[in-house]
Each structure stands twice: as structure tokens, then as C-alpha cells.
């Protein structure tokens, strides 16, 4: 090996490059100094590059710096060799190193051009700075929004809470807002992050967990009313739960909002009482008539028998008949009195499971005669349904009476305008599944202005003239139906006989009759 290499490096007649420079010391010194400086500088540049690449690990295209390093080292080497060949004519070695330099330069140049488009799109530090500023602004805006939302959460009067649905399906409170804390007396710090069952009393936890589970399982928003025994006492809340889902559709969070409706409930009951008085007022006139009838019959038959007794024209059969009549009439009066008594009761009786049809019939009985006198016929088209509903029978009866009274007013008003009217239809039907039932009261009193339809359940809204109605009736009715978990709607209808009228539809949740025994055994 040594032999071959030595041959290659053997001068073979080459003269050292210094010969070309005639060994002039000044020229030699110039070349030696320049080439040495260039070589050393070239050797130091790659070191700087490598150090830079080493420190800036995030640098893209760091390998290009390596390429440059190789190319520059090669360049440096050619210059040092130029010094060497002044005395030693190793021109082959120099050529080989130059060839290596040429290859490295070519590769670097080609790579550089090849990379140029990609290098051009690299953001400049200026651009990066601008982007950074924009990002900072964005963050500030976000922070502001976040603080605004958290200010909503903390300052809204609505009681708000966030429930986390854990992977095992259990529930824990993420946060409750101050309004909820005030309304319930619960401590936000004690609730945060705790499982519902650990955070609340067992009864309250049972009640709310049932609703949370329902919302989690159905994945749908629900709203409901609940009575809760809280640190602040027994309160009625109207609560709404909205499920939040992750990308896979799993419910991971429940957003809740609640409103304390205890006071509203109490006011509503107050209004029911007020309306009862109002209804009683309108019924009083009818009652006077209803009472005077049996009294009149009793008086007439008593006078009749007395007259016959004094005229010696009395037979036992007639006395028997007259006294039986008198007894019947006193019973008729007693029923009326009973009705007024129960009607005036403040609590309207406790809630119970009952047959709505009985209520409807009772309401019809109360006014049928009175309305017949005004040529208003009440037509019952009650499908024989033995479905049961849950609520206060007297309230439902009051509502039905109220609908009758409105129907009567509409009919009389239409007649006043010279048009024929005089029928009130009562329909009762049960859904096939037995879970809901419908009560419809339809009159042929002409209906009402469609623009007014949405307002007729508002308190104090009335279509009647001043002094004819307080306008409490239907709003009370709305409250009654709402408490029974049902809904009430109004619509104008065209009847088959060509008349037009208003139809009030009450939809109530119901249960099959067989459940009555079970419910009664609870009572």
C-alpha cells in the first residue's frame, strides 16, 4: 500500500509550485498568509454552523447546514493544500481534494436551489413577530370573553350548575353559581368536584340523581318541577337539564339551570282562590235561581196540602206524594249547598287519583238546567273511558265550569249580534296507550280573533267588556293543568253544522283504572 501511495505522491518530475513563483519571498509570503488565513477561517465556519445547529434543535433543514459544513471544510482544505504544494508538488492530492470540494459545492448548490421554494415560505422573524402579536391579542380577547362568561355564570339571577358525568356513569358537581348557592343554601366550595351522593342529603340526592340519569340516558334536554328539602327549607324548583356530548356522542356533562318557583306557586294558588271567588260570584246569580226553584216547589206544595187540609179535601196518597216531593226538593237544595261549600275550600282538597269524567259530569249537572233556560244545550260526547288522572278534582271541575261560562258568554254575545248559537260540546277521549287523555270543550259561539289566541291564557287578559270578567279564568286554568302535568290549548274550529266556535283542549297524563286501588291503598 505504502509503495502505491508513495508513487502517486512521488514528484515524478513535477516541480513545487514555489518554483512558479520564482521563490520570491514577498509573493510567497502573500500566498502563504492568505491561503492559511482562508483555510483556518473556513475550518472555523463549519464549527460555528455545527454549534448553531446543535443549539437550535428546532431548526428546519438543519442538515443543509451540515452540507455547507462539508463544502466549506473541503474549500478550506484546498487552500491549505495550496500552501503545501508551494514546496511539495502533490498536485494529484490537491486535485483529488478539489474534486471532493467540487462535488460538495455542486451538491450544496443543487440542494439549495432545490430547497429554495420551501425556504422562501419559511416565516421570517418579522412575520413570526407579527403572528405572535396577533396571537397575544387573540388570547386577550379570549380571556375577556372567558371572564365575561364566568361573570354571567357568577352574576346571573338564574341558578346554574354544571354536573360532570364520570366515565363510570356517576355524577359529580363541577360548579354551582352564587345564585344557586343563595337559592339553596348549599356551599359551592363544598360541592365542587364531589359526587352528588356525597354532596347532598340522601333524599335530595335520590331526587336529583333520578333526573340526571334520565338526562344522561336519553341524551335529551328535560325540564321539570321538583320539590326539594334544602338547607333554606322546602322549595319548589323549575329545573332544566341540557346534556353535553363528546365527539363519540357520550354525555359527559349536564348543564343545569333552575328557578325557585315556590313563591310563584303560592301566588298561583292564591289566584286560584281569587278566581274561585270570582267564579262563585258569577255562579251566585245562578245559585239564587237554582235555590229558589226547590224552595218554590216546597212552599207551593205545603200551601196546597194546608189548603186541602182546611177544606177537608185531603187524602193520604196526596199527603204522601207532597211530603216525598218536599223531601226530594230539600235534597236537591242540600246538594247545591254542599257544592258551594266544597267549592269555597281553600286548599281545593289534596291531590288524588280520580276519574275526570265524574268531575266533568258534576260540572255539567251544576249548569245544565241554568243553561237550558237560556237555550244553551250541553252535549256530552264522552267516550266511556275509565282512565284516571292525578290532581285536585275540584280544581278540574272549576276549570270545566270556567270553560262553560266562557262558552256561554260567547254564545250569548253572538246571539246579541243576531246570529244563532247555543251548543257546548264536551268530548272526553283516552289515548290507546292509556298514558294521556283529552278533554275538549267546544262552543258554537263564533270563535275569537286568531291574533288574540296566543294571549288568552295570560292573566287578566279578557275579550269581555269591562266589568264582565276579571280575565283570571283561563290563566288559572293554565296553572291547574300545568300542575297536573298536562297542557291546555285553544283553537278556532268549524263545526259540521256550519257554525264556528272556540275549542279548548286539555291534555292530561293519565293512568289505567286498575292503578286506582293501588293509589287508594297508599292514602
Amino acid at each position, binding site marked *: 500500500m505504502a509503495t502505491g501511495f508513495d508513487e502517486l505522491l512521488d514528484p515524478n518530475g513535477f516541480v513545487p509550485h514555489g518554483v512558479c513563483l520564482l521563490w520570491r519571498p514577498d509573493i510567497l509570503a502573500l500566498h502563504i498568509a492568505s491561503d492559511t488565513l482562508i483555510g483556518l477561517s473556513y475550518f472555523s465556519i463549519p464549527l460555528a454552523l455545527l454549534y448553531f445547529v446543535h443549539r437550535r434543535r428546532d431548526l428546519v433543514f438543519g442538515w443543509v447546514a451540515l452540507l455547507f459544513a462539508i463544502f466549506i471544510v473541503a474549500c478550506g482544505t484546498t487552500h491549505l493544500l495550496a500552501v503545501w504544494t508551494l514546496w511539495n508538488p502533490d498536485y494529484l492530492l490537491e486535485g483529488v481534494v478539489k474534486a471532493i470540494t467540487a462535488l460538495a459545492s455542486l451538491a450544496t448548490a443543487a440542494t439549495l436551489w432545490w430547497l429554495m421554494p420551501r425556504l422562501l415560505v419559511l416565516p421570517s422573524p418579522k412575520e413570526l413577530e407579527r403572528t405572535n402579536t396577533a396571537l397575544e391579542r387573540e388570547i386577550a380577547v379570549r380571556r375577556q370573553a372567558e371572564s365575561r362568561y364566568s361573570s354571567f355564570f357568577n352574576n346571573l339571577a338564574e341558578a346554574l350548575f354544571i354536573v360532570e358525568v364520570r366515565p363510570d356513569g356517576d355524577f359529580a358537581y363541577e360548579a354551582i353559581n352564587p345564585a344557586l348557592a343563595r337559592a339553596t343554601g348549599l356551599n359551592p366550595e363544598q360541592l365542587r368536584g364531589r359526587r352528588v351522593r356525597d354532596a347532598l342529603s340522601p333524599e335530595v340526592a335520590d331526587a336529583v340523581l333520578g333526573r340526571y340519569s334520565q338526562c344522561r340516558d336519553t341524551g335529551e334536554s328535560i325540564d321539570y318541577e321538583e320539590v326539594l328539602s334544602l338547607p333554606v327549607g322546602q322549595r319548589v324548583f323549575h329545573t332544566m337539564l341540557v346534556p353535553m356530548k363528546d365527539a363519540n356522542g357520550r354525555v359527559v356533562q349536564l348543564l343545569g339551570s333552575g328557578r325557585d318557583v315556590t313563591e310563584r306557586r303560592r301566588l298561583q294558588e292564591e289566584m286560584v282562590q281569587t278566581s274561585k271567588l270570582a267564579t262563585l260570584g258569577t255562579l251566585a*246569580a245562578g245559585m*239564587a235561581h237554582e235555590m229558589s226553584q226547590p224552595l*218554590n216547589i216546597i212552599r*207551593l*206544595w205545603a200551601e*196546597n196540602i194546608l*189548603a*186541602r187540609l182546611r177544606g177537608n*179535601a185531603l187524602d193520604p196518597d196526596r199527603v204522601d206524594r207532597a211530603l216525598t216531593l218536599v223531601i226530594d226538593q230539600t235534597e236537591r237544595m242540600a246538594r247545591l249547598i254542599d257544592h258551594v261549600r266544597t267549592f269555597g275550600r281553600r286548599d281545593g282538597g289534596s291531590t288524588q287519583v280520580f276519574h275526570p269524567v265524574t268531575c266533568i259530569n258534576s260540572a255539567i249537572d251544576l249548569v245544565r238546567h241554568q243553561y237550558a233556560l237560556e237555550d244553551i244545550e250541553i252535549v256530552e260526547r264522552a267516550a266511556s273511558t275509565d282512565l284516571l288522572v292525578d290532581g285536585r278534582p275540584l280544581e278540574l271541575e272549576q276549570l270545566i265550569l270556567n270553560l262553560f261560562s266562557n262558552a256561554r258568554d260567547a254564545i250569548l254575545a253572538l246571539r246579541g249580534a243576531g246570529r244563532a248559537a247555543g251548543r257546548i260540546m264536551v268530548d272526553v277521549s283516552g289515548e290507546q296507550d292509556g298514558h294521556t287523555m283529552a278533554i275538549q270543550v267546544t262552543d258554537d259561539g263564533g270563535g275569537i280573533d286568531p291574533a288574540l289566541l296566543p294571549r288568552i291564557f295570560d292573566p287578566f287578559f279578557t275579550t269581555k267588556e269591562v266589568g264582565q270578567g276579571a280575565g283570571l279564568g283561563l290563566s288559572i286554568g293554565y296553572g291547574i293543568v300545568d300542575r297536573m302535568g298536562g297542557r291546555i290549548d285553544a283553537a278556532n274550529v268549524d263545526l259540521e253544522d256550519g257554525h264556528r266556535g272556540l275549542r279548548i283542549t286539555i291534555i292530561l297524563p293519565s293512568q289505567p283504572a286498575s292503578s286506582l286501588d293501588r293509589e287508594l291503598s297508599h292514602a
Partner: protein
Amino acid sequence: MPEPFHILIAEDEVLAAMALEDFLSLRGFRVSVAGNGIEALERFAREKIDALVTDLRMPRMDGHALIREIRQRDAELPVVVMTGYLTHDSDLTHDRWKPLEIFSKPVNPRTIHATLQRMLGMPPATADA
């Protein structure tokens, strides 16, 4: 013996009408009963009626309408009104409806009897009260 006065009772409560009918019959009147205003008008068209005893609230045609119809045919017919209550807007107390007397239910049949006698120009009864 002169023809007895013919009284028409318009009253939808059958039991009340029956008792009054019996009471007045015993006292020598001829009594007919109509269940509402329309029936009463039909009787008027067919028969000679000397006095009307009527309720106000009745189906089909009430007492007010009946009295208005009657007054167009006979300005002098004695009318006795028996009513459960008189509405404030009733104008029956106005003189143009006379001869007309109003009684509240429960009515005293003896008072009805005495009123009919007076309005029909009969001598006051003495036998029984």
C-alpha cells in the same frame, strides 16, 4: 153559574206548576199549564185566556219575550210574574207592561190567588185565606 176565569201558568218546573194548578183549581179557576213561552203563545192563539201567571227564565222562549208578545196582542191582560231573581236590567217594573205584578220565588200561592182576584175584578174571597 158563570164561566170560570181561565188562568194560564207558564212555568218549566213541572212540580211547581202542578201545585199552583191544583191550588188555583180548588179555588174555582180553570187552569192550563205551558212549559215555556212558545207553548204559552200557542195556547193564547187557540184559547181564551183571562190571566197569565209566568216564570221569567224558561227554555225556548223566556218570560220577558212572552210578555212582550202578549202585550202586542192584548194590552189589558193581567200578568203575574214569578221569578227566582229579577236582573237589574229588567224593565218589567215599567208602567208600559201593566197590569203586571212581580213576585219573588218562593211565592205564596194565597198572594197569587188574591192578586189574580183583584186584577180580574172579582170580589175578595172570604171563605178561606
